[in-house]
């Protein structure tokens, strides 16, 4: 289980005439994601999704608040140990183009301190699950977008983490590739893993997620199951929920 307590991240940004102001990209967000749960983080562009996910992954230190992971062996609060329990992937986590998928998996396994036998076994497993046999020995440079994305996911799997954090994993993929990724997340959920992921595809989120956390301007707008959200807002689908909630929020912000 991963918990975020009142996370705040301050940034300075440049507004007109080169003036710099401080603002909270993430402004007091708390939530948790338990075992066997898929949590979708939705929100308009610039809402703070990526910053939130980076802090959850331990890649960024929050200005205030804290992130911790509860495992069978105890509570892990920060640093390199936290990273051992997380598989993180985003548009910015590219792979070494001059390596093959197999080599990358081996390298990551070694850094996570796995034994050679473990690495080999796990690599074959992953290649089988993600159907990577055809291209596992080609350099990443030479692969198609979908193949690269699958390799990226395989990279998160090698150390068998309890928690997956994916930032827009299906962005720019065709239906076949994205459904492979969606199926994979579902399968991991069945194994009792936690998946937190952000997306702009509402249908996908509605189909996938046990819970939706919508954020806007760094604050949580709602945190509930897709069905409950639809009921509360009287909407047909998640797309409508999103428009109703976010538009409301933005209007009230503009009126202030």
């Amino acid at each position: 289980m991963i918990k975020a307590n009142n996370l705040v991240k301050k940034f300075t940004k440049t507004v007109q005439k080169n003036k710099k102001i401080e603002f909270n990209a993430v402004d007091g967000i708390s939530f948790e994601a338990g075992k066997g749960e898929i949590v979708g983080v939705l929100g308009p562009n610039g809402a703070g999704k990526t910053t939130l996910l980076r802090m959850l992954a331990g890649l960024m230190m929050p200005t205030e608040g804290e992130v911790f992971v509860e495992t069978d062996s105890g509570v892990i609060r920060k640093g390199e140990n936290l990273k051992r329990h997380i598989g993180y992937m985003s548009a910015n986590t590219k792979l070494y183009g001059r390596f093959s998928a197999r080599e990358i998996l081996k390298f990551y396994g070694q850094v996570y301190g796995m034994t050679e036998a473990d690495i080999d076994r796990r690599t074959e497993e992953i290649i089988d699950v993600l159907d990577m046999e055809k291209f596992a020995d080609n350099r990443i440079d030479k692969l198609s977008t979908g193949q690269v994305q699958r390799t990226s996911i395989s990279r998160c799997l090698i150390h068998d983490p309890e928690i997956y954090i994916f930032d827009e994993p299906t962005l720019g993929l065709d239906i076949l590739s994205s459904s492979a990724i969606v199926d994979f997340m579902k399968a991991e959920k069945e194994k009792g893993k936690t998946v937190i992921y952000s997306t702009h595809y509402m249908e996908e989120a509605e189909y996938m997620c046990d819970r939706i956390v919508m954020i806007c301007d760094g604050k949580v707008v709602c945190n509930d199951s897709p069905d409950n959200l639809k009921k509360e807002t009287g909407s047909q689908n998640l797309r409508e929920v999103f428009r109703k909630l976010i538009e409301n929020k933005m209007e009230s912000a503009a009126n202030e």
Partner: protein
Amino acid sequence: MNNNWKITKTLFLKEIRDVLRDKKTVMMMVLIPVVVYPLIMLVLLMVSSMMYGNKDTVYDIVVYNESSNFDTDNLERVLNDNAIETNEKDGSEEQLYKINFETTEEKISEEDCKNKIKDKDFDVYLEISDSEGKAGVKAFYMESENESQMAMNRVKTAIDDISDVIREKNVENAGLDANSILNPIAFEQNGLSSDEQIAGFLLGTILPMIIILSILLSVMYPCIDLTAGEKERGTLETLLMLPVSGKQIVTAKILTTSLCGVVTSILNILSMSIVFSVILEQQKALLGTDGTGVGVSSFISAMLVILPVILVTALFLSAVIMCFTCFAKSYKEANNYLSPAMMLIMIIAYGSMIPSLELNQYTSVVPVLNVTLLIREALNFRLNYSMVIPVLCSMVLYSVFAIMFLSKAYSSENLLFGDGKNGISLFEKRSNIKKGMTVTIGDACFIFPFVLLMYLLFGGLLQVKYELAGIVLGQFLILAGIPLAFFIYSKKDLKKVYSFNKCNPLSPAVGVLIGVGGFLFAALVGNVISNMFGLTVSDALAKTFEKYFSHNVVLATVCIALTPAIAEEMFFRGVLFGALKEKLKPVFSVMIVSVLFGVFHMDVLKFFTTGILGVILCLTLYYSGSIFPSMFAHFTINFISVIAGKYATEHFSEMITRPIFGIAGLAVVILGLMLIKYLNREVKEEISEESGEEKKSA
């Protein structure tokens, strides 16, 4: 620890593989030293041999003779004789070049002559006439034409030879002894250098530069690739998601680039030695002699010294270059950051060309310069081996600092996501600079080298010109003045920057106490170290100010005790320590500032003593929260040096550097620091509360 090293090793192997799979890097690493450099050398050799002419070169000489006293046939004969070299051993002859000698019946005007030389009709035109009863030869040639210039030299030698013969004949005709008149002094030149030494001397001037350049070039590309390139390709975030520390990442990267540098420079040296020995063999075969008799084997000992130096240079250059490139987001940006650094390194590498620069205790701690000089002296067979240790140690030390800095940078998200808080205020628009900020590390990194450079250049000049007054001027104008101007421009809160905080009224007195203790302890350390370097005790005590002891005590006190106490404290403890302690742990801040303070004194011996004093002064500021106690302590230390230097006898100096006094001094320092911490515990809280409130209100 073991696991730590294992991860670093895994990262290192990954980086190596990544670099080796990049064809551009491999080309830079292998092709340039193995093919390009030797090729350049061969071309240069060919060009130079072409300039000196060969047996197929023909020098055309045209003569117009209206003199009756001058024998042109004789001139032609001498010219042709000079073109043939006879081997002394076996009497064989070799044609060095050819002479084509023609006479003309018509005078040639200067203008025509010019055009004909340009068109290669001939190379030199001689106009011979009689003047004042002797033959006058006017030779016309063009300095800008290589062959014309060479032909002119041949003609001049021939004319000199003919003159010699005539002179000798004339003297003999007058019934005198030609030898004693023409050569009144028997002069004999005896070169004592062996062939190896001559070759070493020649190699020593260029090879250091080539080695440093080849390391620089081979290190540069992987450095950019592994830092800015990694950011550009977007693999950095992937790397940082691994459970690895910044230190491990940086260590692996630097080891990789260093390895590239070492491999390249060794390949370079090997290929150059092969080319050299082939050329030597060729000449031996051509001349049929023993040639120069230079054996490559005699340079093996030099190479053994050069090898570790190459290692540390590759390490140093990697670390320094990475400090620049890690802030860049793309190749282009990295190249922009690197250009000034590259220029600087190349200029320093030229140091081996300056004969008066020697490897001594000063130059051995100047990075790059120490390496270039060490390689030169090793090749010249006059290396002082006691200098090898300071060179290696200082280079490793600088590299370690660079690695510490880089590790910090790689642990910070500013580097990764860049929110620009660590920037240099000078590069911002003034209207954007916030009022009342403290100095950032970026500011400090910018100010320190600039001020140091200015102080070395102009401060030295001022001292030479105005002596004591020059010190005062240099310290106040450069050391204190330049940063002050910068801070006023960037609207800093001067009280905060310089820690002009109130402190317990007793603290200055404790500062004096700390100064006394610090002096005694530093004297002991100086004594121990100077013994290691073979200097005498009084050297250690009085080295700093020895030139100035002849001056009036009051004047000396003002100039070399009071002034540094204010200016140096403002710069080192105020600006630098103030900036560093904002971001780094106090331990690191104290260490870095003290090392810089030691480096500032530009002397191996003083590096240690002033470094230790730097630590003591930093702690004084840190525990009191105010700069005034450390100013008092600094004044006391310098004041005692002035007085001791002027009045102390040898006996007194010896007594004062006894271990018992030094250890007592250390005890006094520790007690003083504890006391000052105790005295200022409340004041310090007030200060931190104040700044805390300000932060809230902001």
